[in-house]
């Protein structure tokens, strides 16, 4: 890691140059409730003071909601071609927990088999991180995710009169050299940065005791009453999964044009909360109940991947709490578990 500082006056020109030279994706106000990460053509569209983003920016780019994986032509001979579309992009203003969400997906999509569709896009994505205001439902510090250790090229932290920059890659270093005048970070800069981080962490009001949940999960696992209560109002609508920065489940579909010649394989986001998730040909459904599906979701988020990768498949962004119309609250549920098992 390399540390530099950049003056506030330099920042605007730096962003302007990136917008003019790159395919630039950044936060833009969508409506009174949320911001959305979209292609930015002019700096006036960019609003880095965002709070809520319904759809995680990195997931949307690297693993789009629907994506053609393979195309084919069905004639005498069948021609099959992989479709891996990627172009160099700058993802600007993504916050630490969403970077950590992307880091999880990075790990996931290259484990066992390498998903080239994801990987190609990931390699070409220039990530410039910046902190954003946490929402009331955010519990990232409990999940060790309010700070990004890696997965970005540059991370800009706004101090009073300057930006503190963490440079994580040679690519980031080159971009910075080319587009901005910077200085090496000095002791005072580090001190101010540390102060800033202390204050920033205080903005997160929600805490969860994930360790308790992890330790007691197997104990609560067979308590059907508990899971029925948690899932009582669940709509099985999948909003929690679809808004999650680490959820990766998908369906693959084959389709063909009406000419019966041009076909493709497409994947689209799926959700483990939907009734058909465990349905196999012949009509047997391995997960027919919503409480069972919810339990499995919690297992996947808060246990499975801690055991596999040493990190949770949850970064504490709180999106699933915000989007749930049934008010299912993963933070409350994590915190309730110790009380449940001690009764």
């Amino acid at each position, binding site marked *: 890691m390399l540390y530099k500082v950049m003056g506030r006056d330099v920042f605007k020109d730096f962003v302007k140059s990136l917008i003019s030279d790159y395919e630039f994706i950044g936060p833009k106000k*969508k*409506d*009174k*409730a*949320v911001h*959305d990460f979209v292609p930015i053509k002019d700096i006036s569209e960019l609003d880095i003071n965002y709070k809520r983003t*319904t*759809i995680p920016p990195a997931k*949307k780019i690297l693993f789009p*909601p*629907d994506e053609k994986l393979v195309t084919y032509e069905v004639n005498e001979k069948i021609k099959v071609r992989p479709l891996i579309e990627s172009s160099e992009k700058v993802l600007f203003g993504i916050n630490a927990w969403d970077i950590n969400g992307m880091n999880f997906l990075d790990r996931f999509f290259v484990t066992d088999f390498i998903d080239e569709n994801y990987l190609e896009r990931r390699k070409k994505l220039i990530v410039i991180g910046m902190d954003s205001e946490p929402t009331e439902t955010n519990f990232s510090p409990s999940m060790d995710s309010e700070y990004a250790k890696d997965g970005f090229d540059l991370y800009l932290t706004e101090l009073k009169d300057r930006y503190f920059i963490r440079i994580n890659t040679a690519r980031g270093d080159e971009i910075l050299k080319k587009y901005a005048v910077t200085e090496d970070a000095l002791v005072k800069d580090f001190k101010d940065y540390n102060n800033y981080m202390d204050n920033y962490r205080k903005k997160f009001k929600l805490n969860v005791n994930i360790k308790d949940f992890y330790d007691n999960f197997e104990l609560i696992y067979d308590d059907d009453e508990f899971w029925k209560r948690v899932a*009582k*109002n*669940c*709509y*099985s*609508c*999948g*909003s929690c999964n*679809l*808004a999650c920065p680490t959820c990766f489940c998908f369906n693959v*579909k084959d389709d*063909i*044009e*009406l*000419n*019966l010649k041009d076909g493709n394989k497409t994947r*689209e*986001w799926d*959700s483990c909360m*939907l*009734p*058909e998730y465990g349905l196999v040909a012949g009509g047997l459904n391995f997960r027919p109940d*919503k409480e069972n599906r919810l339990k499995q979701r919690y297992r996947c988020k808060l246990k499975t991947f801690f055991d596999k990768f040493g990190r949770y498949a949850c970064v504490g962004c709180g999106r699933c709490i915000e*989007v749930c*119309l*049934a008010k299912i609250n993963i933070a409350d549920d994590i915190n309730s578990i110790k009380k449940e098992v001690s009764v």
Partner: protein
Amino acid sequence: MSKPKVGIFGFTGCGGCQLEILNLEDQLLDLVSAVEIVHFTEAITEHSDNYEIALIEGSVTTEHDIERVKKIGDIAKIIVAVGSCAVNGGLNCLKNLYGVERAKELVYGDKKDWIDSIEVKPIDEYVRVDYYARGCPPNRLEIVDIIRSLIIGRKPEIPNYPVCVECKRNGNTCVYDFGITCLGPVTRAGCNSRCPSSGTGCESCRGLIDDPNINAQKDLLAEYGLTVEDIISQFNLYNACKKVIAKENKK
């Protein structure tokens, strides 16, 4: 392979479903080259009783309708109900809430006896329906998908998940965030979240999913200030023929 013959028929409704097929634009030519359309009430004057697939729009509201729909049922190998009226009775079913006689009187006054009008029912009350292209209007891409699936011999995939899924895939802000109520969480998707994407709440024109959480939906609507009557009328707009919902709500 010879092209399957298709008949497109209209019953009681606004005719908008047939219009949706005509509105296919780019895909209309592909469609008419993939199948042979032998009857299309709204578009062609030719008519033949020789067809394998029948697309039926509208609900059954007269004695004459019953005869017609049964005749189609005798001929067609596969019947697709197209649009809310055909699928679950649709808006027309609101008439049933008044009772047929009262409704006739309200509309036609002392001439009511001239009118052939019976209780509104979806077509599957009279003929077997193989597939349902839901919605008001139906999603034309879904109609194409059903026809394509029938040509290649696949069971058409009609979603059994709620509209929320499509809203999220489309990156919509939930309309509840703006204080607008929406039946999306219990309504079958497949419309590509048409209404919420344009900022209005879902009215459940595609009917409910197989296992809707009606209680949760009632709690939610009540929280947004709707009375029991409001909630019932919301559910009834497109689903009055499905009495189960009205009953559920009165509990």
